């Protein structure tokens, strides 16, 4: 089957970039179904338990799908497929890193988190420490993480929608903002969970379908797919390339990906939607399975795009390679399949941004409003009202920032979000659960050190200093592209030493009793 590169680059026949009937129809169907779900969820979302945690009614497999959905963002799907298409094996290396945090999540914190917390991860960090300072610090770490992640998603979504549907960037941002606010404001966690589940199923089915058709074109022999890629682009496409040049940088990135997951507020909040710790554990089993499967089959899609469509065509439409998968969908199944994949990518964006908004709103209303401003004395109605106002504000801010950052290279912000998560949120969380001598001051200093060091080091790293601020190559003040190995270590060290210097009797005494809840779930909410 001759690759499409034989046509003049740029003369490729594609409906990408124009709103086609199938794309619009699928998109409208998805919006209709998800809004119907929101209506159903709204009737069941009256209390804070329902708004933040879906009334703890989510089963293990449902949560597994919702977690997968939250994690398999459009950036992940389109970005990694594109990376494999353009860079070959390096894309596979990158994909592996995205999965390995999930086992760590299960072994280290899934069950204690569910047992000790109520709605947010700050519940767990502040469990036996002084509420006000720890809640504020956790909120800073949490909201910074969510903010950068959200900007990256919003900017990515605007350009994606423009590329796929031809809509103006600003219109795309507003549509995303309005629809996802509808999910969260009216349906809370119940709606966002079910939107994620549906999207995860569609995404997994869609990518499975693409993989099967690609393999069919190569007689179901992956070897001949790889041979085709090697023939067209050289054996180098199947070998590790320039992604991992500095082993320390690679380990740092790996640390950020692995432990950053354990500090992402929008992922951690899903653990409060299941009935108990056992369900939390099983849901990670399912999530790891779905996500692992996803990252195993995505490279087939990427290699298929390279072999069947050609790198030139892909980069012509979008330099970053993000359109590799949609182009392949169109090649394999015409406009209807492209329409389906485009609509799924759009649903993906909506669902993830909704989850991020809920996480930010929860942090503000549950952690700051209830525990800091109201000192723990807020009624249900007051907390609900605060949640909805916070949601609205964050939604508007998200759209505003998306428009503000239009055209900027914000890919590094996802890396930044993970770096903050692993440097600020994760160390405090794990030390609080497992270390008797962890003190309030230790927690606050660990979080702030991790957060500001992560942000600061990334600003002076090649990613921002050279690529974004356009300083001369080699002038960066910090050599690593990913600061995790430094900022996370610093956070642990600070947490450790400050705790030893500031004894907290009450916290130490509570530690033994807390074990009753951590390990046996006695008193879990």
């Amino acid at each position, binding site marked *: 089957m001759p690759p499409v590169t034989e046509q003049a680059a740029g003369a490729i026949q594609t409906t990408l970039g124009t709103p086609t009937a199938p794309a619009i129809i699928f998109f409208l169907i998805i919006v209709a179904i998800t809004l119907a779900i929101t209506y159903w969820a709204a009737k069941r979302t009256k209390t804070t338990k329902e708004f933040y945690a879906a009334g703890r009614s989510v089963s293990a497999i449902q949560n597994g799908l919702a977690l997968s959905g939250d994690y398999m963002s459009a950036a992940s799907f389109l970005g990694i497929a594109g990376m494999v298409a353009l860079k070959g094996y390096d894309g596979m290396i990158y994909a592996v890193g995205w999965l390995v945090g999930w086992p760590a999540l299960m*072994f280290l914190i899934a069950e204690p988190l569910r047992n000790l917390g109520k709605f947010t991860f700050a519940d767990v960090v502040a469990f036996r420490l002084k509420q006000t300072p720890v809640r504020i610090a956790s909120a800073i770490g949490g909201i910074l993480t969510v903010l950068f992640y959200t900007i990256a998603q919003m900017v990515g979504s605007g350009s994606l929608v423009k590329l796929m549907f031809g809509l103006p960037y600003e219109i795309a941002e507003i549509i995303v903002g309005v629809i996802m606010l509808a999910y969260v404001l009216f349906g809370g966690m119940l709606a966002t969970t079910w939107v994620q589940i549906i999207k995860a199923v569609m995404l997994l089915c869609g990518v499975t379908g693409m993989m099967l058709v690609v393999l069919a074109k190569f007689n179901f022999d992956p070897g001949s797919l790889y041979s085709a890629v090697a023939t067209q682009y050289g054996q180098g496409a199947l070998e590790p390339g320039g992604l991992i040049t500095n082993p320390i940088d*690679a380990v740092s990135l790996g640390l950020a990906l692995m432990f950053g997951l354990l500090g992402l507020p929008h992922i951690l909040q899903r653990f409060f939607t299941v009935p108990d710790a056992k369900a939390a554990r099983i849901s990670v089993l399912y999530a790891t399975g779905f996500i*692992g499967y996803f990252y195993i089959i995505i490279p087939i899609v990427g290699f298929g795009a390279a072999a069947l469509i050609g790198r030139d065509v892909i980069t012509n439409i979008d330099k970053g390679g993000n359109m590799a998968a949609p182009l392949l969908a169109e090649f394999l199944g015409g406009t209807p399949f492209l329409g389906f994949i485009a609509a799924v990518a759009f649903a993906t964006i909506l669902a993830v941004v909704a989850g991020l908004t809920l996480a930010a709103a929860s942090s503000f209303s549950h952690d700051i409003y209830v525990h800091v401003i109201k000192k723990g004395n807020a009624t249900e109605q007051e907390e609900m009202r605060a949640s909805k106002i916070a949601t609205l504000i964050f939604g508007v801010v998200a759209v505003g920032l998306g428009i503000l950052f239009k055209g900027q290279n914000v890919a590094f912000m996802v890396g930044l979000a993970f770096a903050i998560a692993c440097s600020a949120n994760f160390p405090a969380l794990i030390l609080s659960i497992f270390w008797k001598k962890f003190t309030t001051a230790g927690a606050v200093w660990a979080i702030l050190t991790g957060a500001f060091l992560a942000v600061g080091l990334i600003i002076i790293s090649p990613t921002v200093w050279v690529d974004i601020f356009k300083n001369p190559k080699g002038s960066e003040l910090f050599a690593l592209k990913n600061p995790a190995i430094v900022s996370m270590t610093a956070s642990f060290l600070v947490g450790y030493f400050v705790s030893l210097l500031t004894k907290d009797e009450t916290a130490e005494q509570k530690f033994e009793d807390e*074990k009753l809840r951590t390990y046996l779930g006695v008193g879990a909410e």
Partner: protein
Amino acid sequence: MQKDVHSLLESSEFKSLVAKRAKISILLTILLFLSYYGFVLLIGYNKPFLAQKLSEATATTLGIPLAISVILASWLLTVIYVVWANAIYDPEVKRLRAKLFGK
């Protein structure tokens, strides 16, 4: 109840439960580390190893099945944890809770 709670927390059964969980969490995390960072460091220090072809007849490099194996291994480790938890941890938790409440 306070006395029961205290004696439970002090009991060797509870302490051994906590210790067991710590051991398996740490063990599985170490295995996860070895598998993933082993893979990463292998790439960093020995690219030719991963670039070698599986056989003369194919273009497929060793790196490809290796990457897939790291993903599968990670998932298998979670299966091991769940099997352990279902078989050993949960029944013990149930027993200890019954002891605390069921009197």
